[in-house]
């Protein structure tokens, strides 16, 4: 790199005659260096990302594929091609054995069901709440920034920390919610022991952190809607609610879909909340796996040191691939949906594709 360019301010065609030779040579050298600079710099600048991606992205991707075919004990390492064993009546080593083993686990399907259930319970109410909050914030409020910061506060609280707090709020015996329910005169709800109740509780933790965040995204999109559209609606006699449902919501479609996509990708990977929601000594995911998720299943198989038998990275890798396929299917579904809506009626001027780091 030429760190200190000579930067002649005079035009090059009238160099001082005394330095003629030296100056020419310098220019030519700079020209050569300059051409190389122009050619190589773009690649140089993107190289840190791609080098790191090779190390922690692409290589792991291929390597997971390899590990998923092996009988890989977490502590002792590679133990040859995987064997499915009793559960699928096969003692033949096969590269699909780990996948078969995972698919034959009753627990895996429970985990999948729980993941979808928690995902639905967190995404749908969350988006409705975010829409309402955004509509309220999209007004000439006093202390705007205060309210916006207020709804965003949970974003800086780690999901793991929120999960610990909420596991106490939703405690089965003497937790806050059950105390309040007791005052009303109802029976306590078993927030940890009951399947649906535990899903609602965990979804609440997710909503706690992400509602405000999504509110701000929807609010930004609402403010980008041209105001004359509303004026036209008013002229046509639309009231506030009619405006919201017939103008705001349709104009928000691309953003809504973006929010749904990011919630989907995040929701299907949920781990922190269910892991730390566990109370007392019942296993991770609840004593009868009532809130075990796919990520938690994966972690139990590969990394949890108290897993009965031995932790097996091959099975964890297979579970990761299955999860990946599910995420991809959802992403493609979302994409198709987005395309369709974009070509239908939605506003065409902006495409929502920006994701904000989760």
């Amino acid at each position, binding site marked *: *790199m030429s760190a200190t*360019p000579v*930067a002649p301010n005079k035009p090059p065609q009238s160099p001082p005659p005394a330095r003629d030779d030296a100056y020419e040579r310098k220019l030519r050298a*700079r020209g050569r260096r*300059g051409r190389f600079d122009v050619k190589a710099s*773009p690649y140089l*600048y*993107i190289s*840190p*990302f791609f080098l790191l*991606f090779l190390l*922690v992205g692409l*290589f*792991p991707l291929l390597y*997971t594929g390899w590990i998923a075919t092996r009988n890989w004990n977490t502590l002792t390492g590679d133990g040859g091609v995987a064997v499915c064993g009793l559960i699928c009546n096969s003692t033949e080593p096969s590269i699909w054995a780990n996948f078969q083993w995972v698919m034959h686990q009753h627990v895996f399907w429970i985990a999948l069901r729980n993941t979808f259930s928690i995902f639905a319970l967190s995404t749908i109410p969350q988006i409705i709440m975010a829409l309402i*909050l955004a509509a309220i914030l*999209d*007004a*000439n*409020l006093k202390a705007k*920034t205060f*309210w916006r*910061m207020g709804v*965003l*506060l949970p974003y*800086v*609280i*780690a*999901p*793991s*920390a929120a999960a610990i*707090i909420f596991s106490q*709020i939703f405690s089965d015996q*003497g937790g806050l919610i059950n105390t309040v329910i007791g005052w009303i005169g109802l029976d306590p709800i078993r927030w940890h022991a009951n399947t649906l109740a535990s899903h609602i509780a965990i979804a609440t933790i997710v909503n706690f952190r992400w509602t405000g965040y999504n509110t*701000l*995204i*929807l609010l*930004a*999109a609402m403010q980008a809607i041209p105001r004359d559209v*509303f004026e036209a609606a008013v002229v046509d006699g639309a009231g506030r609610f009619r405006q919201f449902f017939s103008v705001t919501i349709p104009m928000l479609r691309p953003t809504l879909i*973006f929010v749904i996509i990011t919630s989907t990708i995040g929701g299907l*990977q949920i*781990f*922190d909340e269910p*892991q730390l929601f566990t109370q*007392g000594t019942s296993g991770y995911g609840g004593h009868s796996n009532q809130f075990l998720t796919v*990520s938690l299943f*994966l*972690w139990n198989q*590969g*990394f949890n040191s108290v897993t009965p038998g031995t932790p097996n990275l091959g099975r964890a890798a297979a579970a*990761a691939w299955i999860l*990946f396929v599910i*995420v*991809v299917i959802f992403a493609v579904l979302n994409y198709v949906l987005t395309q369709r809506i974009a070509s239908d009626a939605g506003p065409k001027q902006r495409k*929502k*594709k*920006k*994701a904000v*780091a989760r």
Partner: protein
Amino acid sequence: MSNEVSVATLRQYGGNGVANAAQRKRKLAVTSEGRRPGWVSYTYLTIALLLVIFPLYYAFSIASQPTPDTQYGPQALKFGSGLFTNLSNAFEELGYWHALGGTFMVSAVCSVTTVLFATLAGYSFSKLSFRGRKGLLLFVVATMAIPTQLAVVPLFVLMNKLHLFGSLWAVVIPGIVTAFGVFWMTQYLEGALPYELIEAARMDGASMIRTFWNVAIPAARPAMAMLFLFTFVAQWTNYFWPTIILGPNKGNMLTTAAAALKGAHFTDYTLIMSGVILTAAPLIILFFFMGRQLVSGIMAGAVKG
């Protein structure tokens, strides 16, 4: 409306006071932002804010109970006298300074490198021409869809091979630069940096890297600040990967240390909640100073895309 004098002109001729007054008035008259919200809106917002604050209050009130006997039921809602005892116990138990230092190190290093490398790559993708630009950018976007879960198994094996199991470097390395960051900076610089500026710098004889440093960086500064904040928060609140790779050294970072505290004292929530408060506090304090920027960052990101 079209024959009105613009606010900028008013500012020039009438001074700031006139201009600001006009701006306020026009906002009220023209935009739907002008709807004056009634008490219903404020009531909703207050309820929402209480729902946000309440879990934090509850954490404090449990942490203030002198004994675990009162951590359940209605009495847990009343502030007790044990807050400082519990906090200092949790402080000891967590090895607070050690965990805070670790989390801070990881967050700071990852944020600085992510911002630097993402800006470099974003500048290259948005403003320089080279063969394969489109394809490589598409590739970057595609990698954002790869879930963390897919990488943890091989990364675990890799870090073990590098003898980094349990070390903070194992947490740092996968976070040095993110596809999201590259994409974010590309999007921003696309619109924020005019080609003329780059050409002018090149005409003045600046090398490529100098052009980047003196022209692209100043233009990218707002987006860099946002990216720094997002990365910092993401790393600070990260739990899944650290809990796997730190193994027995869970005390090295705050989130894992708090989880370990929960595992060790699962019946004493006065202590656990104190630990949670201690681990969440630094970022909450930071939020009071940086929250405004975080808000505008999220809103800018949503509109620009």
